[in-house]
């Protein structure tokens, strides 16, 4: 069995009386593409923030990349990348300035920033756009660039919060190719999405309903378990319960 990169046990977060995340227990193996699904308000973002070291859990255990979320969040931060749909790069900075900034805050040495950055631009065929402001680039390119930048420091694990929202199907397809490519290099991918076709691309999926995990398995097994033809039906069956 591969090494576990995320381990949680009865992880819970309460905001006052409201329980946003209710005793979730799951593991993610190194190199896995782990889909984190659920309706809006099901507690996905809260759970993710706890794993990123942004929110302190109310109770339960969790470790990310071998570090405890209660006491070692600084160590966790060095080993993860993060990208969300809501924010993709600073619009008033150029492509290269964004690369320099992110690589810089992840403590990459200048020589490495240069070589990694150049490689990244080459892969995305953006060498000529190096000095363009991000705000002038199409959303699809911005999202792909944001993903590449989120893993420029070669983290062991990357969190993607609805990374493909508002992007056309071709770009989404290309985006997932990039995810596979990162996964093949050994980077674990933790992704939330609302697109059920994307759910099929994941190695394993967790379905969150009202703060707790109602289903957790490979897409194929989940479809059998809930006697559905598609992930879409699985989602509807669970979310409507």
């Amino acid at each position: 069995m591969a090494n576990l990169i995320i381990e949680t046990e009865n992880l819970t977060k309460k905001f006052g009386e409201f329980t946003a995340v209710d005793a979730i227990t799951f593991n993610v193996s190194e190199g896995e593409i782990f889909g984190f699904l659920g309706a809006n308000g099901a507690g996905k973002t809260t759970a993710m923030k706890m794993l990123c070291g942004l929110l302190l859990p109310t109770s339960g255990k969790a470790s990310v990349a071998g570090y405890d979320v209660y006491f070692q969040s600084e160590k966790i931060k060095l080993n993860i990348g993060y990208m969300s749909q809501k924010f993709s790069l600073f619009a008033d900075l150029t492509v290269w300035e964004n690369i320099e900034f992110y690589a810089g805050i992840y403590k990459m040495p200048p020589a490495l920033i240069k070589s990694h950055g150049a490689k990244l631009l080459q892969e995305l065929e953006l060498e000529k756009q190096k000095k363009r402001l991000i705000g002038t680039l199409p959303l699809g390119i911005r999202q792909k660039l944001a993903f590449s930048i989120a893993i420029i420091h070669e983290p062991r694990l990357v969190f993607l919060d609805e990374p493909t929202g508002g992007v056309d199907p071709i770009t989404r397809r290309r985006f997932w190719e990039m995810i596979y490519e990162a996964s093949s290099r050994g980077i674990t991918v933790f992704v939330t999405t609302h697109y059920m076709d994307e759910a099929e691309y994941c190695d394993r999926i967790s379905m969150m309903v009202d703060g707790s995990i109602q289903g957790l398995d490979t897409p194929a097994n989940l479809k059998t378990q809930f006697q559905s033809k598609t992930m879409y039906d699985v989602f509807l069956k669970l979310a409507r319960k």
Partner: protein
Amino acid sequence: MKHLRIFVWKEFLHIWRDKKTLMIIILLPIIEVLLFGYVLTSEINNVNLGVRDLDNSTWSHQLILKFQSSNYFKIISLYTAPEVEHALQSNQVKAVLEIKPDAEKRLQSGESGIIQLLLDASDPNIARTIETYINSITYSYLQKGATQSSQIDIIPVMYYNPELKSVFKSVPGLMAVVLMLICAMMTSVSLAREKETGSMDVLLISPLKPWHIVIGKIIPYIVISFVNILMITGLSYFVFDVPIRGSIILFFLFSALFVVCALSFGLFISTVVKTQQIAMMISLAGLMLPTTLLSGLIYPIRNMPGWLQRLSGIFPARWFVEILCHIMLKDSPIHYYLKPAGIILLITLILLIMSTKRFKLRYD
């Protein structure tokens, strides 16, 4: 430290790319100093003064000559009562001086009411100023003619601002307003922008520590504030002769204290709001307006009702203006303004403590 440098560089790029805001930050102080220096002045110059001389004697001619030679007034001769009324109504003159017949003789016999002054008081401030000027010229003329015996001679000496230039008082007030605007509004808006666009999450998930973000946000505005301080004092020194009579070091030291205080206001605002627009609204309505009106920049604080005077005490600008007046105009010893400095320090500490508490609450 390297972290901080990278973050500060990013902030400078944000400011540099936003050319419109940059223009406002740079031009605003210049325009304000020029406006306040030239426009908001209570001095008068070449005011049209109507004179109806019913006496028409050597005595009255000499009085009129005194007015003419003062440079404050341009004399316009009027002859009939309707002419006087028309001149006032049509704004041709701001005031009319009427000298009654046989003025000198009646004056010597102790009669009063030999000179009448009609003022256009539709602008009360100007009317009052003109009255003061005319009174002083008339009295000095009457003094000469009167017997020296029982007169009490009061010779006013204007300390600190002998020419009574209002710009002397405006510059400290302007510094307060401009620094408050740049520090509080710009920092709160720029922090709120990170929250609004979602980049704050990215920054907090990164190995950056919260204090990197806060300090990194503040440093560019401290730099800009000092550029502004230099611009305001330089401009007012070279164009309006506003001096800094006290210690330059103390001047910058206390300006720095006020800058830090204004920044803590910005920081605090950013912890309570979620969007740039609300951050701007709060800084404008909640800070700029009271700073402008209650700092003594335009209206003297001692003329305000008691409760408003006490209210003005919670705005650091009022105390900063007091300190600046001491340093720039009076060159007072430091213990004269330790109290206002202490109050600014206290306000700063309270704001910083409240901000850190709120910051922790949100991101713990």
